[in-house]
C-alpha cells in the first residue's frame, strides 16, 4: 500500500512509442503488495516491454489465478482486458481466450504456488498445447499470501525466516517446461530489467506458449540469509547462460564489433538463419526469426550451449542447477513448432468478429453432426 495514488503528472520529456503513448499509459493501479516486492519490478518490466512493443492496450488480455503474483495484473495495462480466474486455472481460461481471439496478446501471470502446486497439471497441458501466450511465473519459493510457507519451488536446504529447512526437492519450471515440449523457455530475475525486458518482448512475439520463470524475491518472507530466492542470493548465483536481444521488425539495427556483422539495408538482421543455426561460424551468436517478423539474437556465454537444441538446453540447465547456479536468459527457443492455433485449426477471425451464420451453422449442420452418433 501507499498513502497516495501515483501522481498523474509525468516527466515532461518522457518518450512516446509508435502509438504516441508514454510508459505511463501502460501502467495500472497502485500496487498493494509489500514495499520492495519483486513482483512490482516484474510489473514494471511488463509495462516497459509492452510500451516498447507498442502493443495496443485494447489488444491485450491479462490473465491470472490466485496469489500475490496474480494480483499484479491490476497494476499494469489499465486499459486492457483481464480475467482473474480460480486458483491454478489461469492456463485453461487463457486457452479459451487465445482460441477465441488470435489477435489478442495473452499475458498470463502466475506464481510458484499457483503454477507448481495446485496448477501444475494446468501448466503442463497449456505448454503441451502450445497455447499462444506469454506465461510469466513469478517465482519466490514461498506462499506469501499465507505468511511464507515453502512452495514447490523451494530449494533443498533453503531456510525459512524462523530457521525451518526445506528437505523436499524443488520443481524447476524451466526443466519441467523443456520436458513437456515447451517452445520458448526463459528465466530471469526481477532485479535485472536489462535482461528481463528483452525476454518479455521476445516472449510476447513468440508463436506458442512462452514460459518465463522470473526469480522474484518475497521481500517479507524470503529475503533473509539462508534463503535461496533472496535478492542477494540470486545476484550471487545468477549465471547468464544466454544473452537475448529482441529486435523488432521495423527498427534499423547497427551491428558493430562482429566480424560477420551486416545489415541488409531494410533493418532486418541477416547474420544467422531463421532456424537458429549459428551464423557463419560465430559459435556464440544465433539469430531466431519470430513469427511477427522481429528477431531475437541469442548469445551463449558457454560456446557449448545451444539454446535451440532441447536436449542440450536441458543438460546445460540441469548442470548449472547441480552446481548451485541459477541459469538465466532466453534458455530455449523453437520457432518452428506448431502452436495451438495450427493444431486445433482455430478460426483466424476472432469469434467476436464472426457473423451469426458462422457462429451458428444451423439445424442442418447439427443434424448432420448428430447423424454420426446414430
Amino acid at each position, binding site marked *: *500500500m501507499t498513502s*497516495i495514488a501515483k501522481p498523474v*503528472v509525468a516527466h515532461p520529456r518522457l518518450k512516446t512509442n509508435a502509438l504516441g503513448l508514454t510508459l505511463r499509459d501502460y501502467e495500472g493501479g497502485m500496487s498493494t503488495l509489500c514495499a*520492495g516486492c519483486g513482483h*512490482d519490478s516484474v510489473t514494471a518490466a511488463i509495462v516497459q516491454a509492452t510500451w516498447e512493443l507498442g502493443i495496443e492496450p485494447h489488444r491485450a488480455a491479462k490473465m491470472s489465478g490466485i496469489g500475490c503474483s496474480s494480483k499484479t495484473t491490476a497494476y499494469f495495462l489499465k486499459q486492457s482486458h483481464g480475467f482473474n480466474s480460480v486458483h491454478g486455472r489461469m492456463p485453461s481460461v487463457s486457452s479459451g481466450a487465445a482460441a477465441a481471439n488470435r489477435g489478442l496478446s495473452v499475458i498470463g501471470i502466475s506464481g510458484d504456488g499457483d503454477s507448481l502446486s495446485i496448477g501444475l497439471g494446468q501448466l503442463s497441458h497449456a505448454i503441451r498445447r502450445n497455447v499462444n501466450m506469454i506465461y510469466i511465473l513469478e517465482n519466490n519459493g514461498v506462499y506469501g499470501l499465507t505468511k511464507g510457507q515453502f512452495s514447490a519451488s523451494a530449494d533443498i536446504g533453503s531456510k525459512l525466516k524462523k530457521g525451518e529447512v526445506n528437505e523436499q526437492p524443488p520443481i524447476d519450471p524451466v526443466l519441467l517446461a523443456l520436458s513437456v515440449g515447451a517452445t520458448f523457455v526463459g528465466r530471469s530475475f526481477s532485479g535485472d530489467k536489462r535482461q528481463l525486458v528483452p525476454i518479455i518482448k521476445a516472449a510476447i512475439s513468440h508463436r506458442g506458449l512462452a514460459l518465463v520463470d522470473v526469480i522474484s*524475491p518475497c521481500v517479507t518472507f524470503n529475503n533473509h540469509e539462508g534463503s535461496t530466492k533472496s535478492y542477494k542470493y540470486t545476484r550471487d548465483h545468477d549465471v547468464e547462460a544466454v544473452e537475448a536481444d529482441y529486435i523488432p521488425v521495423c527498427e534499423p539495427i547497427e551491428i558493430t564489433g562482429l566480424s560477420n556483422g551486416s545489415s541488409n539495408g531494410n533493418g532486418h538482421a541477416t547474420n544467422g538463419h531463421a532456424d537458429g543455426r549459428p551464423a557463419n561460424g560465430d559459435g556464440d551468436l544465433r539469430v531466431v526469426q519470430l513469427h511477427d517478423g522481429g528477431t531475437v539474437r541469442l548469445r551463449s556465454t558457454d560456446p557449448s550451449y545451444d539454446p535451440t537444441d532441447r536436449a542440450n538446453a536441458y543438460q546445460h540447465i540441469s548442470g548449472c542447477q547441480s552446481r548451485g547456479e541459477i541459469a538465466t536468459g532466453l534458455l530455449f527457443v523453437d520457432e518452428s513448432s506448431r502452436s495451438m492455433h495450427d493444431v486445433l485449426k482455430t478460426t483466424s477471425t476472432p469469434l467476436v468478429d464472426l457473423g451469426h451464420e458462422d457462429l451458428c451453422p444451423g439445424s442442418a449442420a447439427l443434424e448432420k453432426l448428430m447423424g454420426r452418433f446414430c
Partner: protein
Amino acid sequence: MDPTDVSDPRYYHKVVDCQWACPAHTNVPAYIRLIAQGRYSESYLLNRASNVFPGVLGRTCDRPCEPACRRDRIDEKPVAICRLKRVAADLRDDITEHLPKAPAEKNGKRVALIGAGPASLTVANDLLPLGYSVTIFEKNHKPGGLMRINIPSFRLPAQVLDDECGYIINMGAEMRYGTNVTSLAAVLDEGFDAVFVGSGAPKGKDLEIPGRHDDPAHVHIGIDWLANVHFEHIKKIEPRVIIIGVGNTAMDCCRSAKRLGATDVKVVARRGRKHFKASPWELEDAEEELVEIIENHAPKRMVVENGTLVGMEFDVLEWTEDAAGKQTSTVLRTEIIPCDAVILAIGQDNAFPWIERDLGIEFNKWDMPVVDSETHQSTNPKVFLGGDAAWGPKNIIWAVAHGHEAAISIDLHCQGRPVTDRPPQGMNLLSMKNGLHSWAYDNGFDASGRQVMRHEELTKRFRDLQTEVELGFTPEQVATEVSRCLNCDIQTSFNAPKCIECDACIDVCPTACLTITKPQATEAELRKHLTVPAVNMDQDIYHSDPLPQTERLMVKDEDVCLHCGLCAERCPTAAWDMQLFDLLQPKAGASCHEEVPATV
C-alpha cells in the same frame, strides 16, 4: 566520481528552487505549509525572519522565486508564491509581542543608517535587538524610501507599509526625518562606529533628444513624477501621455497617469516584448487597464509647437539577430505620435555628490564607491553600502538581502572582528516519517492550475490613487494554491548501505527521476545514462556511494522530483527517507560570536 556531498547545506538548499532563487533565501515551502494549516501569524513571522516586509513584498516583489519554482517545470505555471505571502500578511493576528525586542541595556555602539528604505530598515531590524543604538537619516517625513514614494498606493496601501516599517522603528531607532544628508563627513564626525548607506538610486535618467527642454513642464522624469504624485504636488495629467521605457517604473507611471485623468496612455519601447524589463504580470496589469504598449520605436525628438508639446517623433525599428546573438536595428520609417505629456522611465542612477572624496572611500571608473560584494564594506572600514546604493537598481528583496549581510558585517566590525570572518550556513534534517505509510506533510499531488488573482473592477479602479487593484485570494483559492506547492524542502534522503536494489523506488517514481546504473567517469556521462537523460544542467544530479550488492550507484535527477515520497514509501529497507530540510541562515548577532556547526 565521488558521491554527492549532501552534508554541504548548499546541495539540499539548491533543491528548494524558490528558496535558492530568493536573494534573502526565504523559507517558502515552510511558510506555505503554515498557511495551509491556517497558522497565518506563524507563517508571517517565519517569512519575516528572512524577509522583513512580507506585506509589502506580498504585493510588490519582483518574485525571483516564481520563475524558479519546480512546478513551472512539471506543470504549466509556478505556485503563486508572492500572493500567498500576502495571504499570511493580510490574515495575521497582532504579532507585535512576537517581534524581536531591543534590550534595555545598549551595547554602546552607535550605527548611522542613511535613508529609511528597505536596506537600512533591514539593518536596523537586525542590529537593534543586539543592543546597537541606531540612527536613521531620512530626507522625507515618513519611512519606506522607494517603497513609499515610488510605488503607487493602488499597488501598495500605505497602511501595510506603515505597519511593517513601524515594527522595526518601534524597537527604538532614532529617526531623523526631514534630514537630507549633504555630507558623509559630517555624519562620520558625529562619532558613529559604523555608517550604512542605503540611500537607493534616486536619480532618474534623462533623455537628451531634440526638443527635450522646449516644453519642460510637460516632460517628466519617471521616479520624480511618481514622488510628486505621492506628495500630491501633481494631481492631474494631460489626456494623452507617452511613457518612454518598459521597466516596472514605467508600469507604475502609466497606471498612475490613468488615475490622474489621462485617457490615452502609450508605453513606447525601443525593442521587442521579450526584451522588456517589466515583470510579465505588471505588463498584463497595465494592458488590462487599456494602456497601449508599442514595440520597436526609438525616440527621435519631441515635437513642440508654439512652446507646447504636441507629440513625439520615433524611428520605427526592425531588429535582426546574427548568429552570435548580437542584435542590430534598421530604421524602417519615422512616425510622430501625438501627445500632451511625456514621462521618461528609462532607468535610474546612483548619485553620491554628498560623499566627500577624501574619506578613504575609493571610487571606481564610473564614479561609484568600490563595495565588497560579500561584506558590503567600502574601502573605508566604517562605511558600508547596500540596496540600490551599492550596485545600482535591483528590487526590494535584494535590498533586504543586502541589509542582512551588511548587518552581519557591521556587527563583526563593531565587535572588532574581521568582516570576512562570516558565520557559515547550517542545516537541520528531520525525518518526516510518521508511520509505515504516513508522513508529517501532505505528500499528495494536486493537479489544479495556478489561481488567478481577483482584481477590482475596471470601472471602480480609477476613482482615486488609493483603491487597491488586487483583492487577494479567496479562501478557496488559498486552499487550492497552497496545495500546489510540491514541498521541495522535504528532501529525498538516501542511505546506500541499506539498499537491496529491488528497483521499487525506480518503478514507482512518477516522474522517472531515479536510476540505478554503473558508475561513469564524469557526471556529464552519468547524465546520459539515466532513465530519462538529465538535460537540465541547472539542476543537480545526486549519486550515491556504491550499492552493497552490485556496486552500481543510485542516481537521482533533481529536476522534476515531486517530493511525493513514493520512493520512500515503497522502499522495504528505509534506504530512502523524506527529511525536512531547514536552512540555518547566519544572522547578525549570537551566531557571529560563536561557531554554528552544520548539523546533519
